[in-house]
């Protein structure tokens, strides 16, 4: 570390100019470019969310008509799922820290890594371009036969999703090869940090699940252009088969979203309790376990879709199995706090917020896994509340926690603690105010994707809309804090939090080639003695 401290060279100022960024093969720069793209798309998705909630403030048309509402609802889902939360943690924080965590100079295929970014940008721009043509109103799930009949720009959006899928496959492929072959000497699979275990399981899901989405979307395009009739009942096809193929990808996709978040939580809770993780092997194995079992459970999205009763029962039993490893992880994190020395920095606050919200998301997930209950809850706001608790409460809280935890390392600047805490408080309270009433709305039977609702649901929807503004404010404050820190924050030391993983042994921001001398690993990642 001493060598380049005198020269003041790091991955940001080693080369200058836009071209050096856009053609950079450095995994750290590609991570930063992903961060900018995902950040912008997160704002776009957030604006759609606020439009949505404002419309639902009161019964009857408030600020838009039914057609516009259906489009806003679809864009909120599609932008958030395909462009924010699937690439979010793996592409931003994963690209930046996977090589640093395993003591490597770069990912296995740097050129493929840059190609993934360009493919992702091409897909995203094509998806956003549908906003200016005839938009889409099919819901982010593109269920047939409606997605075949509607006259909106579904083909463009589906091709865009296909292209983003390719980017996701290439990232997953890159990370698996990196984890397998580029670990530093002595870094056995039993000594890699849990964030790397999480990314490894996520990459397995990305490589094995996304191709099936690819062929499903291609068939949907062929359905609209050639009318092939596989998913269209009018020609003898079976719409439920589309749901099978779609959810075969989309349930592993929700684990592509949550597993990296769990990896960050393992890192943050360990560092800020200054205590080794409790049950390293259990957490590593449950990441792999979740990745494996996630391929068996997709049928729980289709309990009332005309799926046979026997298949329903089988899928319900398998869904129960996937609940167990998740519960194990929650218990292990809580046990890590026991007799630790806990420091309430913002990353830790967000991580504790994750534990709180993901616990509620988890128990409601078990409720939805039981077929008897799901018949009433399916496609109501109970399901909307459940997946927002695990996605916003889980993945985005972990993304913010990871962002603040690694901002000193990525930018070399410290953020302002007070403003960051304000953003946490608003996000956390606003989140509960928005989505807890939706559990009640759901059990009262309010269906989802409704532009207009019966008057009896109005008061709870009002509370929910107010809450959504609080979340919006919280995330915007968080974003401003990050940007202000990057431009005018005080310089950050190499190891501001006392972390034990490898990225804290290099300077902040790290040099272009990561490690001056290749580290030799002799012990586990969390050695708090």
């Amino acid at each position, binding site marked *: 570390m001493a060598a380049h401290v005198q020269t003041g060279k790091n991955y940001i100022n080693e080369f200058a100019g836009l071209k050096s960024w856009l053609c950079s093969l450095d995994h750290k720069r590609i991570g930063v470019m992903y961060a900018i793209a995902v950040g912008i798309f997160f704002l776009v998705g957030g604006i759609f969310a606020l439009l949505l909630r404002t419309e639902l403030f009161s019964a009857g048309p408030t600020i838009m008509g039914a057609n516009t509402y259906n489009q806003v609802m679809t864009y909120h889902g599609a932008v958030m799922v395909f462009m924010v939360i699937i690439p979010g943690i793996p592409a931003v924080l994963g690209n930046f820290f996977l090589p640093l965590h395993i003591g490597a100079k770069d990912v296995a295929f740097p050129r493929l890594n840059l190609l993934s970014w360009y493919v992702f940008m091409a897909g995203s721009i094509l998806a956003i371009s549908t906003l200016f043509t005839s938009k889409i109103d099919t819901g982010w799930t593109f269920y047939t036969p409606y997605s075949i009949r509607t006259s909106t720009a579904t083909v463009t959006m589906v091709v865009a999703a296909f292209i983003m899928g390719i980017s996701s496959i290439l990232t997953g492929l890159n990370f698996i090869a990196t984890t397998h072959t580029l670990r530093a000497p002595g870094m056995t699979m039993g000594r890699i940090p849990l964030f790397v275990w999480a990314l490894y399981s996520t990459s397995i899901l990305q490589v094995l699940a996304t191709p099936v989405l690819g062929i499903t979307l291609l068939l949907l395009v062929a359905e609209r252009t050639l009318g092939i009739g596989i998913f269209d009942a009018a020609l003898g096809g079976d719409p439920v088969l589309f749901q099978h193929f779609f959810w075969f990808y989309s349930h592993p996709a929700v684990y592509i979203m949550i597993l990296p978040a769990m990896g960050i939580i393992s890192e943050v809770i360990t560092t800020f309790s200054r205590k080794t993780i409790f049950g390293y092997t259990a957490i590593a194995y449950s990441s792999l376990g979740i990745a494996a079992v996630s391929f068996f459970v997709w049928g729980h999205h289709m309990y009332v879709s005309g799926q046979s009763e026997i298949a329903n029962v089988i899928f319900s039993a398998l869904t*129960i199995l996937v609940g167990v490893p998740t519960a194990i992880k929650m218990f292990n994190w809580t046990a890590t706090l026991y007799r630790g020395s806990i420091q309430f920095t913002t990353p830790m606050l967000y991580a504790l917020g994750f534990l709180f919200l993901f616990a509620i998301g988890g128990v409601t997930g078990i409720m939805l896994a039981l077929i008897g209950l799901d018949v009433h809850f399916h496609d109501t706001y109970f399901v909307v509340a459940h997946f927002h608790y695990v996605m916003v409460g889980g993945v985005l809280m972990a993304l913010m926690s990871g962002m603040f935890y690694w901002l000193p390392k990525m930018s070399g600047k410290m953020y302002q603690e007070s403003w960051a805490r304000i953003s946490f408080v608003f996000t956390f309270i606003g989140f509960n105010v928005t989505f807890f009433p939706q559990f009640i709305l759901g059990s009262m039977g309010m269906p989802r994707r409704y532009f207009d609702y019966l008057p009896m649901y109005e008061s709870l929807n009002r509370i929910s809309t107010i809450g959504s503004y609080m979340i919006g404010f919280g995330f915007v404050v968080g974003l401003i804090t990050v940007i202000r820190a990057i431009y005018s924050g005080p310089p950050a030391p190499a190891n501001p939090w006392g972390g034990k993983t490898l990225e804290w042994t290099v300077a902040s921001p790290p040099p272009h080639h990561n490690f001056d001398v290749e580290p030799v690993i002799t012990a586990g990642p969390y050695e708090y003695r």
Partner: protein
Amino acid sequence: MWWLSLAKASSFAPTQATKIAAEWDSLYQFLLVSSLVACALLIGGMIYFVTKYRRKTNHDKTPYISHNSMLEFIWSFVPLVLFLMMFVWGWSLYYDMRTVPSNAKEVHVYGQQWLWQFEYKNGKKLNNEFVVPVGVPVKLIMTSKDVLHSFYVPSFRIKQDVIPGRYTDLWFQAEKLGEFHVFCTEYCGLDHSKMLAKLKVVPLEEYETWLATTTELTGGPGAQIYNDKGCVACHSLDGSPKVGPSFKGAFGKNSMMDDGTEVKVDENYLRESIVNPNVKTVKGFPKAVMPSFQGQLSEEDLTAIIEFIKNQK
């Protein structure tokens, strides 16, 4: 059971109008209470640890506890057993939901874009509302005429998708009299949120007499087609525009198309708009939403419906 009464206050599910709804509520309340207990343990434990083990100095020494096999086994095996118990209870409830009693009365349900149609065995048809006897099992045989819909009665805790090209069934036995909401819960396009229906539960005798009376719709055969073919879902008779323009006073007037041309509303314009609706669209109305009725309407049906539209002054 004490926990039942505790949970009853906190469960916000709508009124229990069938025995299955009662069973459903007891499972839901059990899960509510056990979730409350689980969250209290987990989150309470977290808050307790976080407050008790706050960082005192910057050089705190923490014990090196890497794992505890017994504890880890317990908190893996116990949740598994608990979840499997809940799964079996959920399964038995689902079993009751899906076994249709043999003596059930049958009602046929047709879902189409933004309208529910009900048909009884004696040919009685009506839109967006239907009547069932209390205390008698009723079986719904459902299919869709265009895209996916889903028949959902919150007070009965029943839901089943309605799929084009295939029949799906659903059964219930209403125990309470009164009127209950029916929603469509599978996204089906523009007026997905307007696709509501009313389910009236009446005593058996009243149901029998209601079934026997055939209400004669005023306005001749055209009115019947206006209801059966679902025109009512998008075209109103009182002048208010819905998904499509209203029929009131439409005939004989010149109306502006969305491509700016002016067209006189006469027989062949109406005939063309029914058989091939996407050719001309009235200004201000969504394009390519109306399905084509090519081959669904016989010649005299077509003239009857055009006649019906003509005398909507």
